[in-house]
């Protein structure tokens, strides 16, 4: 049963390391270009200065992007510290958005979310919730067509917070990747206060407050 959460963690780590490798590649090439231009010289020619300035700026920008991305990844990793905790739904969704952005871009699917800022803190398993959100998005992405859109909203209804993840667009009929059956995910969430149900293009996640 745990193969699916492990696959989810693996996917997040693989995409994270890929992204960081890309950041490091640009830092390395930019530093290398500065070195190429400066090597063996006592003074730098005026016409070579733009290369150096642009390379230094590229390094700074890339480091800032990396720090930002690592912050999200670090927060994601700490969601697994304890099975149950009190957390802000917006923060959990924001992390998933940032960590899945590149996957969504590769599939050419846009993802937007609009959550009310006044949602109460949630007492549940943040990791399992992120897994369920991932499952919903991943299920759509595995059969998505370029140009489609995924939209997430949330609302409070009495003692429930309802998260709705909707797919807008056509599905690819020739699906080459396995999609986990919904019941296997329902089994994983069964010992939490999270419930998941689905129709063809909508996933509903309910969290009991």
């Amino acid at each position, binding site marked *: 049963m745990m193969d699916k959460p492990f696959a989810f963690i693996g996917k997040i780590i693989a995409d994270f*390391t890929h992204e960081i490798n*890309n950041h490091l590649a640009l830092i390395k090439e930019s530093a290398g270009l500065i070195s190429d231009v400066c090597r063996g010289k006592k003074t730098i020619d005026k016409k070579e200065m733009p290369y150096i300035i642009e390379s230094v700026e590229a390094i700074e920008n890339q480091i800032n992007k990396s720090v930002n991305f690592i912050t999200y990844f670090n927060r994601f990793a700490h969601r697994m510290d304890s099975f149950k905790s009190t957390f802000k739904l917006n923060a959990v969704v924001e992390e998933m958005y940032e960590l899945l952005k*590149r996957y969504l871009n590769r599939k050419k699917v846009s993802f937007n979310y609009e959550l009310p800022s006044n949602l109460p803190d949630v007492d549940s398993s943040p990791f399992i919730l992120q897994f369920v959100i991932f499952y919903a998005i991943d299920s759509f992405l595995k059969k998505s067509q370029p140009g489609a859109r995924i939209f997430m909203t949330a609302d409070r209804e009495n003692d429930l917070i309802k998260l709705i993840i909707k797919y807008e667009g056509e599905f690819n009929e020739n699906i080459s990747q396995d999609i986990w059956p919904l019941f296997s995910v329902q089994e994983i969430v069964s010992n939490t206060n999270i419930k998941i149900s689905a129709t063809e293009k909508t996933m509903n996640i309910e969290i009991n407050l």
Partner: protein
Amino acid sequence: MKKGKILIIDDEQELVTTLAERLNIRGYEAHGLSNFAGAFKFLNDVLDVVILDIGLQDTDGLEVLKRIKEINPSIQVIMLSGYGDDERINKSLQLGAFDYLIKPVEIEDLISKIETAKQKKEKSK
């Protein structure tokens, strides 16, 4: 005379520009593209090596590799990717990539691969 004609295709425009510049400094004629759409004009030309990323904005890098090999099988393609999983590496080699390098890469290692790829291209003539 230039050491060889190289095309870099990677969706990170800054990386493309910087890497092309570093290869130009080393005596190559390097061109860079951030998508596959503009690549056709190079592929029927006298191109020695393509340095290709897997994750492109407009299409999948493996698809691009397949199309390059269909259009001009003599062009040697070096995959350069942040992904280092066996599946992508094996698939790339099966589709005819000369080699698969994982980012970030030492420029001297890349040049060594380019030179070996050029030799392979010469032998295949």
